[in-house]
Structures are given as C-alpha cells and as structure tokens.
C-alpha cells in the first residue's frame, strides 16, 4: 500500500497515527456519526487513555456529541474496561473509549460501545459507517444541545464490582509484580492496593502521555524482558504486563519466564469451565487446540469463528450468556460472562490469581500441568488478487484434514492444524501452525514456501 498514513476506518471504529493519517476532522466527523446513530435522550459516556493526543481527540468527541444533543458524561483518564463498565451503571445510550490500546504512543483511536458496554454488532457498526460516509449528521439547534458533566466515581464503582466477583482480600498472600506500561492499569491497581492492602509491586506506574517505558505490546518476549529479571529477586508469585488501556494482559511465572499469550485463554477456560462444566468456549480459528483438550476435560465444547472481535461478538449474541464459559483470542484478550463479555485485562489477572489460590500452586507449576503445544507463526507479503489461488492450492495439497473455510483456510488433524488467512490491517497473509508436543517445523516450512511462491 503506497503512502500508508496508518488511517483505518472499519467496523471496529477509527484509528491511525495522530497528525499523519488521523486528523481532528476525522475524529469530529466520526463522533458526529456516532452521535447521530445513537438514540437521543440518554447520556453518552466518554473516557480516554493517557496519550497526549487524547485531550485533542476528547475535545472533538465532546463537541460532536453535544452538537447531536447528547448529555456527555466524562470519566477522565480511565481504562477502556472502566468505560464499558460505567456505561451500564449510568444507563447510557452508548460510549466512546479514546484509546489506541496496545499500539505505540503516536497512535490513537475511537472505540464505539453500545448501551450495555459491549462492542457494536456487525450490523450496528455497518450502519455507523454508512452515516459517517454520508456525512449527514443530526446537529441540533441552539436550545437542544447536550451538556457535559464529569463523573470521577467510575473507577471506584468498577473496583466495587470486581470485589463482588473476586475475593480481593483473599489475594493478600500473593506478591505480584505488575508492569503498567505507564497506562491506566496503574490507576486501578494503586486504588485496589490502597483499598485491600494487596502486595502488588507496580513498575512503570507513572501515567504518561508521550513516552511509554516500552512498546505497549503484551507478548511473552516483552514480559520476559520487563518482568523476567524482577520475579526471583522480589520472590513474586506471578507477574503481569498490561497495555496502555488495560484491556490486554500478559504473564510471567515465578521463575521469570514469559508465558505465551496463547496460554491465557486455555487457563481461564479451565477456570471458568471448572465452575460451569459443559459450557461453550468461543474463540477464533487461529488460537491453540489446547482449548479443545481443556474443554473436553470439563465436557464443554469449543466454537471457532473467524478472526476479529466482530465475529466473536456475533457468536456471543447468538447464545444466551449462561451458555458461555469464556470467549477470547490467542492474543491474550479474554471476555468473561461475569463482566458482560468485555476484554478486561484486570479481570483476567484477578481470575488467574484466584485460580492460583484455589489450586495452591504458583503459576509456573500450574502451567506445567497442561500438555505441551507448540505454535509457529509467520507472514508473507502477498497481493490480494493472488490469495484465492493460494488457498485453492493449499486445499488440494492437504485433502486428508478437516476443512474450515470461514476465514481463509484452516485444516486440522487430530494432533495438529494450520490456518492461512489474510490480515485485516496489512497487505499480508498470516500462516499459523500448531502441533501437540514438538513444533511442526516441516509443515510450517512447506506452507511458507507455498505462500512465498505466490508473492
């Protein structure tokens, strides 16, 4: 893609590099589209992560929503899950979280939320996009405009609700090291420490708008780099690393080893299914097959959908909440029914700690009880027109496996699988391949060779 300025306008919302692809004009127009899309009469909740550009984005968002006649409730600098949580409490029509989450500091984004704090469905997001593209906004007259008010209580109400689900005082025995990556998790965890006397050691706690201590990536490698050297000296039981808006989290064990982000969902599926056997785990086609094994142990089953939050949301809305154990991705982003199915890294962390307490083992020991799966991931630059040929070629090359063509091509066998798909955000195809036990190097190499032969 020539001259890519990083601007992305899609069903997920609007994101880009501020001042390059993403301008104030885009932000105001998109927020106005959302203000037009929402039913009038109920407030709209707004919160932002600490990025310096967040204030600029916030000004535009507030102006557009007021112009569309909505009362705006501002939560200030809070995590995206806190915004989602507040939405339901405040009986709001919807909300906007201003955050580029795990992207670098120069990015920002608008994330649109429906009345229950959930992400928009595919149909809703499509309608919003249509309004944005038509640019026919419902700007009201001078005596019908919305007002702005600040609500500083959202953080405490969020912690109250976490405390109602998790036994927070019961976690006092754990020493936990947390890398807040200068983001909003610092505000939540500091308050939690003050309220419940928890033994959490926070690093990169200063909330920062321009210079994050490191890229806000929640990968095993980043965890090993940041938390690895601290775990043994601090005698910590577990370590966690959050992205800037605390919806994603990664883990380190007591030895200082980074835990693959792929392990978060199986771990929480195990935890949730042990409390509600027979339920469904919703995940995408690219996440670990360990899930099927874990679900099988509790008589549950795994429902695999195309990659992307939208497909997961659509699958969720096709079930009753009590049928679902957990939903999530291999990226470590997990939704639990206790929290109305939002990606919430803090809730994931508390669930893992609760699990450690119940099983009486440190994280590394607990993880070693799961069978070993090895995953290999690669990507190849490929012109979009050639993708169908590659997929047909692959389909014919591996005729013996179980086929799923709902998102690229996934072929699975009893002990291994691969998934080849087109990225939503870049002109590349992704190759993911996993095997129980040792890495499926040979299969991976031949897939990559085949993909490259089309590039």
């Amino acid at each position, binding site marked *: 893609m020539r001259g890519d300025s990083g601007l992305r306008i899609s069903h997920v919302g609007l994101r880009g590099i*501020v*001042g390059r692809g993403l301008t104030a*004009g885009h932000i105001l127009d998109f927020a106005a589209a959302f203000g037009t899309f929402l039913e009038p009469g109920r407030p709209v909740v707004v919160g932002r992560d600490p990025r310096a*550009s967040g204030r*600029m984005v916030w000004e*535009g968002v507030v102006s*557009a929503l007021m*112009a569309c006649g909505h009362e705006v409730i501002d939560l200030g600098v809070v995590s995206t899950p806190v915004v989602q949580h507040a939405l339901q409490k405040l009986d709001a029509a919807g909300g906007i979280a201003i955050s580029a989450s795990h992207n670098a500091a*120069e990015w920002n984004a608008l994330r649109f939320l429906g009345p229950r704090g959930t992400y928009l469905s595919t149909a809703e997001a499509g309608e919003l996009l249509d309004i944005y593209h038509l640019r026919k906004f419902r700007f009201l007259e001078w005596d019908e405009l919305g007002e702005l008010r600040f609500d500083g209580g959202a953080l405490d109400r969020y912690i109250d609700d976490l405390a109602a689900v998790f036994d927070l005082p019961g976690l006092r025995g754990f020493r936990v090291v947390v890398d807040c990556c200068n983001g909003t998790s610092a505000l939540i965890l500091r308050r939690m420490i003050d309220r419940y006397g928890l033994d959490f050691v926070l690093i990169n706690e200063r909330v920062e708008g321009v210079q994050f201590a490191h890229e806000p990536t929640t990968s095993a490698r980043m965890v090993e780099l940041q938390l690895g050297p601290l775990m043994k000296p601090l005698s910590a039981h577990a370590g966690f690393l959050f992205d800037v808006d605390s919806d994603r989290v990664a883990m380190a064990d007591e030895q200082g080893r980074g835990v693959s982000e792929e392990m978060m969902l199986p771990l929480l599926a195990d935890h949730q299914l042990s409390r509600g056997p027979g339920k469904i785990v919703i995940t995408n086609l690219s996440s670990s097959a360990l899930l099927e094994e874990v679900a099988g142990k509790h008589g549950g089953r795994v429902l695999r959908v195309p990659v992307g939050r939208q497909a997961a949301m659509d699958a969720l809305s096709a079930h009753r909440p009590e049928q679902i154990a957990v939903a999530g991705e291999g990226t470590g982003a997990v939704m639990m029914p206790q929290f109305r199915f939002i990606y919430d890294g803090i809730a994931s962390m508390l669930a893992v700690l609760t699990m450690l307490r119940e099983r009486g083992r440190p994280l590394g020991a607990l993880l070693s009880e799961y069978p070993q799966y090895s995953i290999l991931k690669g990507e190849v630059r490929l012109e979009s027109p050639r993708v169908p040929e590659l997929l047909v070629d692959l389909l014919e090359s591996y005729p013996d496996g179980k086929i799923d063509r709902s998102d690229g091509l996934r072929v699975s066998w009893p002990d291994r699988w691969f998934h080849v798909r087109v990225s939503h955000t870049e002109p590349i195809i992704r190759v993911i391949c996993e095997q129980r036990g040792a890495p499926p190097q040979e299969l991976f190499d031949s897939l990559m060779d085949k993909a490259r032969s089309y590039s």
Partner: protein
Amino acid sequence: MPREHLLKIGVSGVRGVVGEFLTPALALHFAQAFGTYVGRGRVVAGRDTRTSGPMLQHAVQCGLLAAGCDVVDVGILPTPTIQIYVEHIRARGGIGLTASHNPPEYNALKLFNKEGQFFNHYERNELIDLYHQSDFAQATNAEIGQVTRDEGTAKGVHIDRVLAKVDVERIRRRRFRVALDAVNGAGSVMTPGFLVDSLGCRMDAISIDPTKVFPRIAEPRPDTLGDLAALVRKTGAEVGFAQDPDADRLAIVDEQGRVLDNDDVLALAVLRALAVVPGDVVVNLTTSAAIDDIALGFGRRVYRTPVGEANVVETMQAVKAAIGGEGSAGGVIFPAVQLCRDSFTAMAFLLDLMAETGKTVSQLVTALPQYVRKSGKVAFEHGRLGGLMQALEEGFPEAEADRTDGLKLIWADRWLHVRASNTEPLLRLAVEAKTEGAAEKLYQTAWGLLAA
C-alpha cells in the same frame, strides 16, 4: 425571497445559526487554520453565555490542539476582557465565541492577534485563504499541547487597566446608585463586581444569571431596555447600564429612565477621554458631528472610517488615536485600556464625569453639542445600488461627497450617509442636522431620491 444569512464565512471570521449551518466541524477547521496561522504557542479561548458556547469551544480547542497550540481556557468572559488577557499573557492569539448582539441561535468565532486585537485586512485574507486551502498544521502525539484553565486572572487585569484611567476615589465617595441589565450575558460574571467592589456603587441588577437565556433582544437599544428603564425609575438610580451578550457594547439609561442615543454615549466618553490622554479621535462615517465639535474644543482631529469595528480600530492604530468608536453601534474604544470596544471603560468614564461635574446624566447630555439624527433602512436589489447613489449625488450637487463607504454627503450644518449593510441585503440611510425640521427635510428628500 429575501436571502437569510444563516452562515457567513468571511474576513471577519465565521458567524451563523448553530445547527445545520454553524457546525462543530466548521468551528474546528477554522480554529485549526487559525492555529496554523498564529503558530505553536498559547492561544486563549473564551466565550459569552450562549447555550452553543461550550459545544463550539470544545471544537475550537480540538482544532487548536490539533494545530499544535496550547490552549488557555478562560471560560465565560466579556470579549474585551478576553482580548486584554491575550495581550497580558503574551499569547499567540485568541478566539472568542460570541455573536455579540445577534439573537441566541447565532454564534461566531472572533479571532484576535497577539496584541488581542482584530487582524488587519491583509492578515484576515491570508487566514481565510489558509482555511480554504485546508493545509493545516497537524501536531503528532509528542507535539500536542495542553489545555489549562484560568477564569480568574483576566477579570482583575481588565478592571485594573480601567481603574488606572479614572479617579477611583472620587467615584467611590459618591456611592452612586446604579441599575444594571447584563442580558444574562458575559457581563454577568464581571460587571456586578466591577460596579460594587471596584467603584463602590449601590447596585440593583436584572439579568445577571449566566446560566439563563437572553431575556430580551440582545442588542441594547431604546426599544429593548424597558425593564432597565423601569428598574431605574423604581429604585431611583442615578444611571442605568445595559450590556450586550459579550459586554463590548454599552447602552445608558438616564436618571429619568430615558435611554440615551448611542451617539451621545460615545460623545460623553470622548469628552472624558480627551481630558485624560493625548491623541486624536477616530469614528465611522455615520457617527454624529458632535464628536467633531468636542474634538475641536480640545484642539484634536477627527478621522472618519468606513462602518465596522475593524475599520475604526485599524485607523486608530495607524494614527495612535486617544479614543474612537461607532456612534450607532454603542461602542467605545479606548486604546489606553485596550484597542477594542469596551463597556467597562464606558461605564467608568461616565461615572467619573458625573463625579467630577456633580451633574446628572441628563444634564451631561443636554450640555453636549445638539444634533437631530434620523435613520432608516430598506431592502434593495444589489444591481441597483450604483444608480441609487448616483441619483442621490446628482440631487445634492452642492454637498461634499465621500465615497469611502457607500455615499456620504456633507454640508456645513448637516450630512447624510447611505450604504449597503455588510450583513443583510439592506440599504441604510442616516441623516443628521441641527434642528428637527432640517433633519426631517433632508431625510424625506433623500428617501424621495432613493425611491425614484
């Protein structure tokens, strides 16, 4: 169908009806163009009390931040106070959200340079070109500035500048009984403190709640100030003051409850100003010849400009004038406080004059050079304007003609001025003469020629 000017983007900024016409997107883009033009640094943002003010101010702040400026949010303040503050803190410029005397459904962006003044004609054209080119400065995350709030400092700075130019003790000793109508505008947050605390007045006030809508037509005119006149009569006030929503204009009610002619308000201010500072006087072409008589008494010159505050200000700056204004608009501009219309200076000058002379407002007015003025307006078609003016000039071959803004015809003891309005498709006619009879005759003759 008469064309309604629901939105006007021009050299004086953006003005329009909020909703479909003056949108937050428009305010944002104009502010971003402004931020690009003045460069990175602090920009002051403030507003009057219109309900659309907060919405538009957020859009303006978004645009300024996006251009890489820091924003100083001064909240609700009179326009002159915002202008003074821009200069005081050495900001790059300022944006005031106010449609001045226009009805509540209107709003506008008023743009100020680093001296807290309007941009000159050339700068305004550059800015509007920049807006149309849409090639704005785009700050990255590391370059985005901050928003700070300062609602207190500016009021003190403005009031101190005004008080420095009058005999405060002389005014305070009189404990004047005054009445105020701030139209629930920006004056509401500052004028009561100014009159009571700074000038020691005993005040009765109406419409000083900045959270409420304008209770009367926003322009302070004789026909809109009935409530203030009644308050003056009821409380026995020595004077009544009426501001417009952004408190740059002032109307005055005398001790008998009569609303002064705006030309007399300016004349009284000129009388006071010339006694305290050196320099000449600048007024627009439609302002009373009384100003010439007063200036003559002080040995000063009078410069005439086309109608419009910006025109008056531009000439005032060029000639380093002592005072200026526009009679018909109720604006007093006193550069020793700030080069902009300022109702606070006008109030202080009148009280100082009353304290010094011991006279009532009506006595002060009676002592002014006496002229009779008449004015009217009529809808016209653009193509006919030249012919109408031609007919007028040919009808009065003996008069001296000035064509800098429409047509002004001047005799030794009278004048007439006809011009097209800048904001509406209307032709405005004003005449002035020494007597009622002479004024009426000139007025009727001129209409006769225009209607022909």
